[in-house]
């Protein structure tokens, strides 16, 4: 990375250009700063730093939670006290002082909100700057083609915006409610749909699962909740935008998505944070439940502040994401583009319980400067004829370290299970590293598991070839890397694909030549 370079992104407004995805002009990206590094001056209502049963109880009290949820949090907290931070990942960071983190911070509401019009203008402006449309568009929502190349005219996107620990606005709620779809903040779901939350919370990622999941279960503050009833195809993309603003706070959000029999939903999440010199902890938990014939597509463009070029500051991103295909022919598809965070520790996984259920994981992880990523997936084949596909593209630049870590597990009863894994790494420069740790555990002789892996250095030949056609080195690198990531980008909904390509272009600037 060169002197001026920093990670960042130029976010496209919600409109979609009519050009095909490939023809998006990467050269328009000129901004070299981490664009979202600003801080919003807004009064916050925060708890003192540190963690104790009192703090956990206070979070629960402030959120006016029912007794069972407080009990759940306390169980998780007590369990967390007994656990040690995992150290098996290929990442290196100074110990986190959990007593020095603020576990709850909420923008102080001027009054109780009844509608979007009453949201603090400071907050609306923040999301405006981030390019997140919180004002509901007037146009009617059309139908989103799932899996296919998205139509040029996308329907509206329903957005839930989470600022520090609290959801500040959810759009298109009424429209979705007509179809029986629940899309709201997690806190609201606890109040309005306690039976659903109680049934599914912790059912995929139990509070005992791992150190960060236990911590999250104890202190999670908000997040998104989606429920798609039987037979309903959600007509628009559902999206949550996470923003960390306050200093010294951790963000611990919880997302729960349930798709009943035959339901279909596509969900997007995006995230940014201000540039700060200290590291901030983000430990989220995402649980997905797909019943018989249901499909959940979950896409992430992660652009937390990555720290500066010396590795100062940046988000520690320790996230547990898991989906369960509970019914036959259920399908869960994870797509992630990870360009931000100082440290990424994240393994979106699928439990393939139903027969013929399908799990997919498509990932692009880019580490530049001194970023470290240890990411991958777990595909657990339990039902018969379950299928999983893993496509991982790791790009390392600067002094970045990029690790793919994946587990394909075929249980005894998983007759006819199939997996295909492809893990490709690309190196830019000679001070970065790429590592692959594929684990395969097969307990059924009929299983077919394939693994392919490649590591390549971006070719001087390729760059010269592009140069000779008039294309500058910077544009050539970004083109070659985009080509490398294409199999993943084409899984993203159109808007995110645009953003992801631009994000890569900006993140790569100055990394070669």
């Amino acid at each position, binding site marked *: 990375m060169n002197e001026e370079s920093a990670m960042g992104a130029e976010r496209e407004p919600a409109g979609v250009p009519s*050009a*095909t995805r*490939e*023809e998006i002009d990467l050269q328009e990206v000129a901004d070299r700063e981490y664009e979202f590094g600003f801080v919003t001056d807004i009064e916050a209502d925060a708890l003192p730093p540190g963690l104790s049963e009192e703090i956990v109880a206070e979070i629960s009290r402030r959120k006016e939670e029912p007794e069972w949820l407080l009990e759940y949090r306390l169980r998780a907290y007590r369990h967390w006290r007994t656990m040690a931070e995992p150290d098996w990942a290929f990442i290196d960071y100074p110990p986190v002082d959990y007593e020095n983190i603020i576990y709850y911070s909420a923008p102080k509401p001027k009054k109780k909100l009844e509608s979007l019009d009453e949201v603090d203008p400071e907050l609306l402006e923040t999301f405006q700057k981030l390019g997140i449309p919180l004002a509901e568009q007037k146009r009617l929502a059309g139908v989103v083609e799932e899996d296919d190349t998205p139509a040029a005219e996308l329907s509206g996107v329903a957005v839930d915006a989470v600022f520090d620990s609290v959801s500040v606005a959810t759009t298109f709620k009424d429209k979705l409610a007509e179809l029986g779809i629940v899309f709201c903040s997690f806190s609201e779901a606890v109040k309005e749909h306690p039976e659903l939350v109680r049934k599914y919370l912790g059912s995929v990622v139990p509070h005992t699962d791992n150190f960060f999941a236990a911590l999250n279960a104890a202190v999670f503050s908000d997040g998104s909740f989606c429920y798609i009833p039987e037979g309903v195809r959600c007509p628009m993309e559902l999206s949550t935008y996470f923003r960390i603003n306050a200093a010294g706070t951790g963000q611990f959000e919880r997302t729960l998505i349930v798709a009943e029999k035959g339901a279909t939903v596509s969900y997007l999440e995006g995230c940014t944070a201000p540039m700060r010199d200290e590291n901030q902890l983000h430990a989220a938990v995402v649980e997905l439940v797909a019943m018989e014939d249901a499909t959940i597509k979950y896409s992430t463009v992660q652009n937390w502040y990555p720290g500066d070029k010396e590795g100062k500051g940046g988000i520690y991103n320790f996230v547990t994401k898991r989906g369960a295909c509970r019914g036959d022919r259920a399908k869960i598809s994870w797509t992630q583009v990870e360009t931000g965070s100082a440290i990424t520790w994240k393994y979106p996984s699928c439990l393939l319980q139903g027969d013929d259920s399908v799990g997919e994981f498509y990932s692009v992880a880019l580490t530049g400067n001194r970023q470290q990523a240890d990411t991958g997936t777990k595909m657990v084949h339990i039902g018969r004829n379950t299928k999983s596909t893993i496509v991982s593209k790791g790009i390392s630049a600067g002094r970045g370290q990029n690790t793919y870590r994946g587990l394909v597990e075929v249980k005894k009863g998983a007759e006819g299970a199939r997996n295909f894994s492809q893990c490709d790494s690309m190196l830019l420069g000679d001070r970065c590293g790429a590592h692959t740790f594929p684990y395969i555990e097969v307990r059924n002789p009929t299983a077919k598991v394939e693994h392919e892996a490649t590591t390549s250095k971006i*070719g*001087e*030949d*390729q760059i*010269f*070839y*592009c*140069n*000779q*056609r*008039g*294309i*500058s*080195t910077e*544009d050539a690198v970004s*083109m*070659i890397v*985009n*080509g*490398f*990531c*294409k*199999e993943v980008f084409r899984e993203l909904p159109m808007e995110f694909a645009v953003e992801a390509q631009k994000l890569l272009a900006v993140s790569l600037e100055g990394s070669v030549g």
Partner: protein
Amino acid sequence: MLEVKGLMAEVEGNAILRGLDLTVNAGEVHAIMGPNGSGKSTLAHVLAGREDYEVTGGSVRFEGRDLLELEADERACEGLFLAFQYPVAVPGISNAYFLRTALNAVRKYRGEAEVDAVDFLALVRERMKLVGMDEKFLHRAVNDGFSGGEKKRNEILQMAVLDPKLCILDETDSGLDIDALRTVADGVNQLRSSERGIVVVTHYQRLLDYIVPDHVHVLSEGRIVRSGGKELAQQLEQEGYAWLETSASGAGGGA
């Protein structure tokens, strides 16, 4: 158009070009022939601006500018095109996207408006006829999984779309069967014009049966040792390069 004087270049300390002179005017087709290792491909790459080659002496003027001062992409934008002997694959990037990006880079450099997808498609469809390429090639990744003949045709297509002033064809005939050779040569011939210079670098004479040159130069040990008309190529075909050995050292003494 192109004026090369006393050009010297080396790769990893080995001198390859040792005082090469060459002048190409608009409208002319020059063939550069010579045995393996004589410096033919080096000349092509040095002119195109490949960084692995170090220019240690001489000068190159292109359309009145000092070519050696320019980066490889600037040379391309100035109108210098190299058809590669081994075209490089760019997986995941379609031919159409690559070519439009290149065309717009060149146009931008020249201060011209960028072409939109519709105009581009019309242009490229028309140019594809020159090399008898099927439209499906537009949607395939650049040179990825292309056969030898397809790659070479693709080079000529790029040349036709980018409309350069000077074309350097580096061993464009290598790896082509006779039908493919004819198609590629037809494409090049249709691009011959009074405003364009073409330099054909080749080991064998057979390409020159199809692309008939105005001038033929024989390169040996990094210098042009003999120049003549198209009949010189035929002489080389009959006599091989062995006779050069003596005349090369003779010419070397005098130059």
